[in-house]
């Protein structure tokens, strides 16, 4: 049910783009209006969400310590997993954001009947990493469409990405990796009962959406060729705020673009915000030095306590009998 709902939602969206462009000739809507709306929602939504998180303070310093603390000088501290300085935190966060350090913690091979066994958790780490990195590379590659002349680093990336030198046009490895990893991430949600049990429609929908984007992109590049000059013209027009709709770009492009727009618009409303959230996570981005430097809680307020005076009043006679010094005789 949750899967089908998400699946048909994406199918319906693809069809609406197809119908909109092919039948109703709404190229301007799908090529200009929707992209602008999507970018606006994305930017405002993203900023709003981050500001909203940021508006709640971090009252306590609560890093999850995953190694030896800083204490006596001769005890070797784990400066990254239990950082006592900002530089340690930066490395910790970098490992987390770039290499998925915590997921990697699952990565332990076991010997079973003499064979090396990799549990599902390792595949999750690998697929997660492959998915995010290939997505990023593809995203960067697309910059060439928005820039008058293609910067050299993009050409380098493209060169590396296609170094297999297969096919015409050259096959980008990241296209395959992205499709493969997104498929894996979907299948594990379907076939691993405990993951299926916890999955929501909101988990399947972005997977279908991204699959749709990648698939339409692949179709466009390798099979139903579109007028790439026209695409660049459109893209540049969007960037310099003088939108144009060149004639003769294939409908598959509009489908691709529409799905991307949906992803952008959906992004700030969804769990995809983990992209920003991971950097704000107090269990990871804080220094474990709260015994060295006092952390301030902005809403710290005075509380009712049972004072020593009250305590002594309750027990004075008993204390005196037991030879415990008291304030008032």
């Amino acid at each position: 049910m949750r899967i089908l709902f998400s699946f048909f939602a994406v199918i319906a969206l693809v069809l609406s783009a197809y119908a909109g462009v092919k039948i109703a000739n709404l190229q301007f809507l799908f090529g200009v209006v929707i992209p602008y709306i999507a970018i606006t929602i994305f930017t405002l939504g993203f900023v709003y969400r981050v500001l909203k998180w940021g508006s709640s303070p971090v009252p306590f310093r609560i890093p999850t310590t995953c190694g030896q603390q800083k204490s006596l000088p001769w005890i070797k501290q784990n400066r990254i997993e239990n950082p006592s300085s900002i530089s340690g935190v930066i490395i910790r966060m970098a490992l987390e954001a770039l290499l998925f350090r915590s997921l990697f913690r699952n990565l332990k091979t076991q010997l079973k009947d003499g064979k090396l066994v990799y549990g599902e958790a390792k595949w999750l780490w690998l697929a997660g990493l492959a998915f995010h990195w290939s997505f990023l590379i593809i995203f960067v590659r697309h910059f060439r469409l928005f820039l008058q002349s293609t910067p050299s680093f993009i050409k380098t990336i493209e060169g590396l990405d296609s170094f297999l030198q297969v096919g015409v046009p050259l096959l980008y490895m990241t296209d395959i990796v992205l499709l493969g990893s997104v498929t894996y991430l979907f299948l594990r949600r379907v076939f691993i009962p405990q993951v299926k049990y916890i999955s929501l429609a909101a988990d399947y929908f972005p997977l279908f959406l991204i699959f749709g984007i990648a698939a339409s992109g692949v179709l466009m590049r390798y099979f139903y060729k579109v007028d790439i000059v026209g695409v660049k013209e459109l893209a540049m027009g969007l960037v310099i705020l003088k939108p144009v709709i060149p004639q003769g770009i294939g409908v598959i492009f509009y489908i691709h673009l529409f799905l991307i727009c949906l992803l952008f618009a959906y992004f700030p409303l969804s769990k995809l915000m983990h992209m920003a959230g991971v950097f704000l996570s107090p269990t990871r981005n804080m220094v474990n030095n709260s015994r060295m430097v006092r952390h301030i809680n902005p809403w710290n307020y005075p509380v009712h306590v049972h004072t020593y005076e009250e305590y002594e009043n309750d027990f004075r006679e008993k204390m005196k009998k037991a030879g415990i010094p008291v304030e008032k005789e």
Partner: protein
Amino acid sequence: MATKFTAKPDELSKIDHKPPKKGWMDTPAEFKEHTFCWGAKGKNLNIVDFPNARDWSPAEEDWKLPENWQEIVLEGIKDRLGKYRSFKLFMDICVRCGACADKCHFFIGGGDPKNMPVLRAEILRSIYRKYFTASGKMLGKIAGARELTLDVLKELWYYYYQCTECRRCSVFCPYGIDQAEITMMGRELTNLLGLNTDWISGPVANCYMKGNHLGLEPHTITSSVEFFLDDIETITGIRIKPTFNRKGAEILFVTPSGDLFADPGTYTAMGYLMLFHELGLDYTWSTYASEGGNFGFFTSNEMAKRLNAKIYAEAKRLGVKWIIGGECGHMWRVINQYMDTWNGPADFLEEPVSPITGTKFENAKSTKMVHIAEFTADLIKNGKLKLDPARNDRLKVTWHDSCNTARGMGILDEPRYVLRNVCNHFYEMPEDTIREKTFCCGSGTGLNASENMELRMRGGFPRANAVKYVRDNYGVNMLANICAIDRATLNALMEYWAPDVSVCGLHELVGNALVMTGEKERTQDLRLEPLHGKEAEE
């Protein structure tokens, strides 16, 4: 509504087919006997002015909730979303990848899917989505949102009092989502409705009025310690004279009251007394701040702060220079990550310097509170203690890292250093079960009651299983740790899963090994059992 221990005839054949599958949202919690603690008593909640104080029982259908309970919960969520970035973030960014699913000791040992940390969090997230997000309001269940019904509240209660806030899930989460943090919020919400447990609210009330969880009154504390002094005299021939509430002492010593009351914590307390005496340390105990632990931490941030305030207040009143804290798990999570923020700045104290070695405890220069394992490790490193580890030769020791000190502080190698110096036989448990990946005792956060023994046994099974491994492979017979709750509960766990493994605190072993000036030849250890090689003399 609690389920009794009988099966209907048709359930007997159930084993052949999988039960009908419903989504977790539509499966209400079943309150199974021996898995939950008794409800709080109204009088204990009244002592600390908690709202909606009344006697109640989780097993009853009627929880005697206030008329507007939904409003109270939702208002409570809103309030906390505004106060804690962690809470807001952890409600939003989970992608349900499942990496945490099999990291919880309750799930591993019991198998209830709602004990997967991600689902435990989703219980609260489903409410959050329904009332605080646009998509949840519009799309309802399809967006993972759920009405806050009585069943949902009961589910929340049942599973949030089956979480020991051990933070193991947080170690493996790619975003560092910490179920302990979410459980704390969930428990705060239940406390707004007076839905606490007797085992937590009783100690909280005790600690508030009498200074410690066990409700030991001042004269009881001193007479308790007298017993230890008698035993120490029997063992060593030395009569120790500790002081209580003494003004002008250099150091205040605070330890969990469990160490004063129940074995084997008492032996650890004897170890403290012997060590401090041998050093000639200018220190005092306090009967007012006679609790290092903090059961308030298992109810609400505010209650925890109220109980914790006594430590600094007493240090100030007595005019000490700094504080040493005894062996306790959650006490040190609180001291390391909360105390200074709540009740500091402790500017009336001085930066801690060991009077014996002159070592400055740089890492405690703001809180001015030093962990006794840090203190003792420094003594040993500087050669200030005469130790005879052979006195612990009867023991083959393994080390249990307590959750809070491991994942909320990181005190891992100091106690190991001490341990290696006070005993000759030390064996680590398997790598995946120690240090930051350590398994919980299954009884933390106030779950160490008797009525939920079954839950405790299954929650502690992953830990016990690793102990069993070193017992079978190396003959380990002693499980050492620095946590009062561990000392109180691991005994029971071992009795069930790995009989003939006992439990002790680090400073019990220190006390055994410590060669004291002027002591007679020892023939007994702190448990008054014959020392290794001295059995014949008995």
